[in-house]
């Protein structure tokens, strides 16, 4: 007993102050939201397009990058002769609409807006989520799970992961949605009472990620369910996930 108490003192209070205080420090090599500048791309150069493992970079309708497919491997930055793609340290990447993840050098990045008044009144201070891994590699799952630890303490925002879809206000989906999980996912969704929301976390759940266009997967949840929040990354940093959830419930507004 005494040991347990002494250990408690030794381990200290660890919960981060964010969002009321500063966010935890991110490493210098952290890769957050990329910015692109294609104006001075040498004509005919398509090295980044050819190298991108998930075809996230497109040139056909003007130069653009699909954050929802991006694995943040930064191979594109290594081959670009002009450093026209650059990964910033901005961890705020969650959006409400799939199209908002398609970035180019003109459009301003549209951060996720809060739920509408009606849903915000319901979920703003108590949001219970059921997590479904549908082909996820356990990295998105792990960095979602970490939000429940004392360091992040998701419970202080009223957000909690629950064991049964019957107790949930929505689903948080990871993975490219394998054919073998499709039915289980749809059944779990059906078991959540209305009104309900869907959150897609990670490149796989948004676009299929590295498994895009495999016959065994459905390229994420977007074609199967109405998705209300999309959080890109491979996997997204816990701070990116937390930021997205807090924007959705209206705790972060800028």
């Amino acid at each position, binding site marked *: 007993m005494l040991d347990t108490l002494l250990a408690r003192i030794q381990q200290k209070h660890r919960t981060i102050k964010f969002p009321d205080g500063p966010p935890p420090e991110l490493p210098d090599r952290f890769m957050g939201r990329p910015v692109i500048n294609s104006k001075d791309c040498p004509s005919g150069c398509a090295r980044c397009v050819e190298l991108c493992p998930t075809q996230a970079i497109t040139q056909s309708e003007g130069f653009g990058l699909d954050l929802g497919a991006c694995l943040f491997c930064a191979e594109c930055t290594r081959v670009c002769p002009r450093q026209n793609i650059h990964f910033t340290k901005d961890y705020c990447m969650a959006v409400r609409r799939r199209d908002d993840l398609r970035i180019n050098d003109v459009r301003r990045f549209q951060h996720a807006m809060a739920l509408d008044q009606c849903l915000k009144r319901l979920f703003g201070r108590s949001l219970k989520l059921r997590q479904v891994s549908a*082909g996820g590699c356990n990295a998105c799952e792990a960095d979602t799970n970490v939000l429940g*630890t004392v*360091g992040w303490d998701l419970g202080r925002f009223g957000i909690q992961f629950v*064991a049964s879809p019957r107790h949930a206000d929505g689903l948080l989906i990871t993975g490219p949605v394998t054919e*073998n999980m499709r039915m289980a996912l749809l059944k779990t969704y059906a078991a959540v009472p209305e009104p309900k929301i869907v959150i897609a976390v990670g490149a796989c759940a948004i676009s299929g990620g590295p498994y895009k266009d495999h016959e065994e997967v459905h390229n994420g949840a977007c074609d199967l369910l109405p998705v209300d929040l999309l959080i890109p990354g*491979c996997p997204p940093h816990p701070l990116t996930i937390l930021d997205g959830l807090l924007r959705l419930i209206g705790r972060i507004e800028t």
Partner: protein
Amino acid sequence: MSDSVPERFFLSSGQAKDIRNAPVLSMEAFQDAVIHAVEEGGRISALFVQPLHGRSMRLWAMLSQDSRSRILPLCTDTEEEAFPSLTPLCAQAHWFEREIHEQWRLLPKGHPWLKPIRFHAPYRQNHQQPPAGKGPEIGVTDFFQVEGEEIHEVAVGPVHAGIIEPGHFRFQCHGEEVLHLEISLGYQHRGVERRLLGGPGNRTIHYMETLSGDTSIGHATAYCQTLEALSGVRISARAQVIRGIVLELERIANHTGDMGALAGDVGFLPTLSYCGRIRGDILNMTGLICGNRFGRGILRPGGVAFDIDAEMTKALLSRLDVAEKDLTVAINLLWKTSSVMARFEGTGAVSREMAELMGLVGPAARACGIERDARKDMPEGIFRFTQIPVSTWNTGDVLGRAHVRWLEIQRSIAFIREQLQSLPEGQLQSTLPPLPPDRLAVSLVEGWRGEICHVALTDSQGRFAIYKIVDPSFHNWFGLAFALRNQQISDFPLCNKSFNLSYCGHDL
């Protein structure tokens, strides 16, 4: 009967051989050689099919002879639709033969338990094409059933209560006692192996890093070593050390998370809370090195993509000291708490004999007293120069698996500290030449769950004719099912966590 193999054709991990020199045995000689090698203490690290032309298929077995630090590759060709099953004589072949049947419809005749393991349609001869038709419906199979008065069945999954991956568990119970557990997986099947053929390509390294996301570094290490073996490239000492450091960070992070989760599963919340946070601190150390907490992007064929400079070394060393101190306090609480020990001791015990028979790997095997560790047995990279003592326990139960994890955490910390203090010079990454044709290479890496085995065979153009991945979970899922026999069903979460196997690493 390795002596009867016409020509000796051994490999060490990370070495390549010309396939054209591989002795092709008769089916009978192949079977005898596999069974004999296993009887003599060898293990089946991989058993798979390589499609040849027409209906012809080549059956390959990679037999690890740990005590001699070498791998014996055996092969035989068949044009039949069936071959005599090895499983009745060699239990280690059990899961592999089910996989072979599911992928290629090549029937292991006499297999006692022939059911799908991933529930997908069979591959075609030209298997880069989509599989033929639809696979069997996921989870629908003839589960083993116990009958009798007061026997009941409990079905759990695929969607579980926590934030974990999907799988289906079917328990046959008498009251609280589990008589039998059958584990049915495949929900995470993404068709990786099929897509690796004809490679490597732009996505290959990303498949490796997401085969099992918590083992990104382990699988990427095995892949890079396989490619380097095929092309005969030696990476610099510095790159080897950096790979070793991140591999051990991955081990510490996952073991730490598991120690916390084990505490959580017996309702001991202090250690659960502390370890959950400390695990994050370890992941952040990997994040410091490469920007990603899971080590995505650090390993690339030919070396590593990120360096560790003097300032980072200092930061890592000081963070390591803090983490070690916090972990020691958090984990030692477990051993001092009698209510925790009462739940750990004797729960989910596997005997050494059964572990040998099933071919268990990793902490699950070492907890039974088996000194099996690829870092010692099949050393590659930095582990050829520095040995980490093998951590074993002798009870084979949850306590044993917990103890092995804690010992490994401490020894990995000591290893990282030593390596950081003496980082050798060297180029970070060298360019690999195109892969040579007709080569076989095997790489064995001791991931945090156990032996990761990657086998590559190149075709006449130097592309992957087959790329076989065996996650440690592939060997160990049956071990978990076995550990549950005659246990209380309420101990399942605890037993499950003490193995902590990968669903996606198994399902591929």
